[in-house]
């Protein structure tokens, strides 16, 4: 797309200026909520009630962050959201890994080892992406009870894996469809087996889609609230549930700065992931599901 807009003529320069103006305005719109959160989280309480939303802090302080992490109270516990942060990690990491591995194998089997009905199987599994989660809440509760996993981290991991593999399978399947079949066929002729072909041929080219799957699952599971609140006990709650408890806990004067700091803490991992790897996420996603 070279020379789309020629430089240096006054009209082009004006056009260029408008272009940047529009883009920057859009950026401000997207940035607004985060900016308010960040600014509020480092303001002392007195400044929040005195000034407007976007007034910069006169005396910035990290105290709200410290309080949100380790001291803020919900109910009788005054331990902040820090501990729950690690609960989330303990749930997210295994759930993401397991669902990604299963998704990769499924996608591989569905594209490179087609059998009669494999398309039906795919269609069947795809539906899992679209099921509204409220629908499965009660049946899931009963099932977790049968499995003896209710209110445990393992139970939550199971739930997230179960409803995550639909997405990961979709990603990997759409990605592997575009990988040339010739290499696989040749390897089959050489007598290479199922896992060997996966390991040697598919896996080495899978980096982009693994990134997609991991990022997607990571954000989905980290941000989950519904399952987290319904299937956890007092000591297995993920950070989103703790955040909700904290924000909805009212103690005389509402400490908006602590609320915002807690929200930032809960948001940080997914934010970091998007900022650092967002590029690869989009690139990989377009290589997969957007393929025409």
């Amino acid at each position, binding site marked *: 797309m070279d020379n789309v807009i020629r430089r240096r003529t006054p009209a082009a320069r004006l056009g260029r200026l408008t272009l940047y103006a529009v883009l920057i305005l859009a950026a401000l719109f997207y940035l607004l909520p985060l900016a308010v959160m960040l600014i509020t989280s480092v303001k002392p309480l007195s400044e929040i009630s005195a000034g407007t939303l976007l007034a910069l802090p006169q005396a910035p302080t990290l105290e709200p962050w410290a309080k949100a992490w380790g001291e803020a109270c919900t109910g009788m516990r005054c331990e902040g959201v820090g501990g729950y942060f690690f609960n989330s990690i303990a749930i997210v990491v295994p759930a993401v890994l397991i669902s990604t591995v299963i998704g990769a194998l499924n996608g591989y089997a569905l594209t490179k080892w087609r059998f009669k009905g494999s398309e039906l199987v795919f269609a069947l599994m795809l539906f899992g992406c679209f099921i509204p989660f409220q629908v499965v809440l009660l049946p899931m509760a009963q099932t977790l009870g049968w499995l003896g996993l209710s209110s445990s981290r393992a139970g939550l991991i199971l739930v997230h894996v179960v409803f995550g593999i639909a997405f990961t399978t979709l990603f990997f399947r759409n990605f592997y469809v575009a990988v040339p079949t010739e290499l696989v066929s040749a390897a089959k002729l050489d007598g290479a087996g199922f896992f060997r072909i996966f390991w040697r041929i598919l896996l080495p080219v899978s980096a982009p889609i693994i990134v997609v799957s991991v990022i997607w699952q990571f954000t989905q599971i980290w941000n989950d609230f519904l399952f987290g609140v319904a299937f956890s006990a*007092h000591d297995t709650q993920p950070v989103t549930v703790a955040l909700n408890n904290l924000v909805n806990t009212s*103690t005389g004067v509402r400490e908006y700065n602590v609320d915002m700091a807690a929200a930032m803490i809960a948001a940080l991992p997914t934010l970091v992931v998007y900022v650092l790897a967002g590029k690869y996420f989009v690139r990989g996603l377009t290589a997969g599901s957007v393929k025409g």
Partner: protein
Amino acid sequence: MHALKHPPLLRRTLLGLAVATALGAAQAQAGEVEVLHWWTSGGEARAANVLKELMEGEGHDWQDFAVAGGGGETAMTVLKSRAMSGNPPSAAQIKGPEIQEWGELGLLGDLDDVAEAEGWNELLPEIVADVMKHDGQYVAVPVNVHRVNWLWANPEVLDAAGVALPTTLDELFAAGEAIREAGYVPLAHGGQPWQDATVFETVLLATAGADFYRRALVELDPEALGGEEMIEALATFKRMRELMDDGMSGRDWNIATSMVIGGDAAMQIMGDWAKGEFTAAGLTAGEDYLCAPAPGTAEAFTFNIDSLAMFRVTEEAEREAQQTLARLVLEPTFQEAFNLAKGSIPARPDIDMSEFDQCAQRSLEDFQHTAETGGLVPSMAHGMAVRADVQGAIFDIVTNFFNASDMTPEDAAKRMTSAAQVAM
């Protein structure tokens, strides 16, 4: 409060010794209670902590399971999910007719042993005891009695506007104008369905009286629900909007209370849990803030009782712990400490009220007085009058009517009649 600190501590050390010496026996006794509740605000949590310490003093383990948000709605979801998985907590904050529903499902364990030993039948007012029983057996223990129809006011704002604390609705509307002119919000409110319903039931009580209230919102008499009195109450309720401000949408009740505390608003109609907020702000009743029965409802008392229901458990130690919990809840130490912090009055009327402020003392007097005169009614807005589905249907109509510009009171009353039937 003084009585509170030492004995439990002493008891705990003694029990510690007992545990240390007779390890085997003591361990068989020590059970664990997991308590699901939404006492998450500062005052409530401190108060509930007293119960936890008492439990630990008796050698039992307290697992705190607080779920905040939405007036317990989130907590109820969790409770249902836990019950479905066959793993309910041993005790949960359940109240009103919902206790009956859980009881019908056969999930609650009975507390008759404790009730008999402690003489709950003599201790508790009959109207309170009835709520706690399913099928004639005690399945829950009352924690407190809230009065819902209170008016809270900031005297400085009233003075600035040159008005007195209104005692009738007419006075309220008149005062509202003066307050508005003086530059304040007359009535602080949060636009959430349960808050809308709280104001509605209070207005209904004022315009139509306790007997009509009972017919309409407790017995769901279709004639009352669609009647003239109802239409009038709805119209008056809608007028209350004039007294409120633009920012009310979705506002939490305690934020509304803080508007009164901070002097932005003059008054708020809210249950006596609002007092916890005033107390937390270091204010004194009668001096820094005023409390009075909501305008026009001096002769009535809408009650809202918090209670802990006990789920059926199999383990003997856990059962033991439950029984202990139930006993401790009604002991004066906890009743006093909890209700001082929460703003409510003790569930048993024999507690010494000298530590309590004038609002609570008045509340207890009115409670006993209205129990005799028939002005004592359960709060619909707080799930004491009807089951959750009917309550929800009424909420829908009330809040929609309150917010919609094009619904007439006649319309709303008609819908109320059909909703009450459909929901049943």
